């Protein structure tokens, strides 16, 4: 079959659809169109929440770090927590910036798909960062968070802290590596493959 013949088949198919295809108007009427969350909106909402939450958290950490700065050990813990929170916030801002730039309705398909890929790659990289720094963050931030939230001075209980550190390292890292490998690495590979496909599609002459 030639392409022109297929076009004829497609055109006949279109005629059949015009005669037979039914639109379920009742189902569309029942759709909560104004409040429904679409898949495309989810990443934007997610990043907005992350940026606001991250900013509030960073502000709280800095405030308490200053307040508890008399104890240098808590101060160091507070500074490390602030740095971690600052990096996380910057990564969230970068992600939000990537997703708000996507104009789903006016840009060309290739441009939109490339922007989506950029967002996805940044998202997976951020998840990797969070997973790999998470256990260290828990260890570094715990003295500060315990002091700020409950008044507990963990340095008065060095054995408990050491056991906690060991548990976090022994369990936390294998879990982080496993999650990254099984959840994000495969998705990252698929994203890279799609990017290759797009580049090939775009440049084929």
């Amino acid at each position, binding site marked *: *079959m030639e392409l022109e013949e297929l076009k004829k088949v497609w055109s006949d*198919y279109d005629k059949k659809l015009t005669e037979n295809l039914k*639109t379920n108007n009742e189902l569309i009427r029942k759709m909560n169109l104004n409040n429904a969350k679409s898949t495309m909106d989810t990443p934007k909402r997610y990043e907005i929440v992350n940026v606001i939450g991250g900013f509030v958290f960073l502000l709280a950490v800095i405030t308490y770090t200053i307040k508890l700065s008399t104890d240098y050990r808590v101060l160091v813990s507070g500074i490390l927590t602030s740095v971690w929170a600052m990096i996380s916030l910057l990564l969230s801002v970068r992600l939000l910036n990537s997703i708000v730039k996507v104009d*789903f*309705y*006016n840009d060309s*398909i290739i441009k939109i798909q490339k922007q989506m890929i950029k967002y996805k790659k940044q998202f997976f990289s951020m998840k990797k960062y969070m997973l790999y720094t998470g256990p260290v963050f828990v260890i570094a931030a715990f003295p500060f968070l315990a002091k700020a939230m409950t008044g507990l001075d963990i340095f008065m209980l060095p054995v408990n802290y050491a056991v906690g550190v060991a548990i976090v390292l022994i369990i936390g890292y294998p879990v982080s590596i496993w999650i990254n490998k099984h959840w994000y690495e495969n998705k990252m590979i698929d994203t890279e493959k799609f990017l290759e*496909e797009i580049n090939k599609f775009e440049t084929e002459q």
Partner: protein
Amino acid sequence: MDKEKFIQVITENKNLLYKICNSYCPNPSNRQDLEQEILLQLWKNIKNFDGRVKISTWIYKVALNTAISNFRLDCKRVDKPSENDLAYFSLPDFEYDSEFDEKLQLLNKLINGMSKLDKALMLLYLDNYKQKEIAEILGISDSNVATKVNRIKQNLREKFSNY
């Protein structure tokens, strides 16, 4: 735009919406998710439609982008249809003549085997969009579109030489 006017626009463009959903999600039990997602995208953004292009072209673009980007929807997964599965677009069995049926099946097989982007190009081509329009919608050059159409023709000759 109110809901009734929106339904009218959807009804007027039901064929292209059905063809896109069917091409990107051939499994009927999962297709409703894609149909719903496309309808939501169209509803949320129809206010931004400025009339510079035909409404069908705009719908094509939004629907194709949604279908290509459907990172949450798993169209390869085969679920058994449940009683709650209500399609937004339904096609009752209609009579084909056997030759037409065979050719249509071949065409669907060809489209299903294509990559997401080739599929978009093929659908636009089959729906008689001009080379320049296809290039604009996809964001590639005119010559690139011509090359791809030639490649598809060549593939067709190889795959369906017996028909």
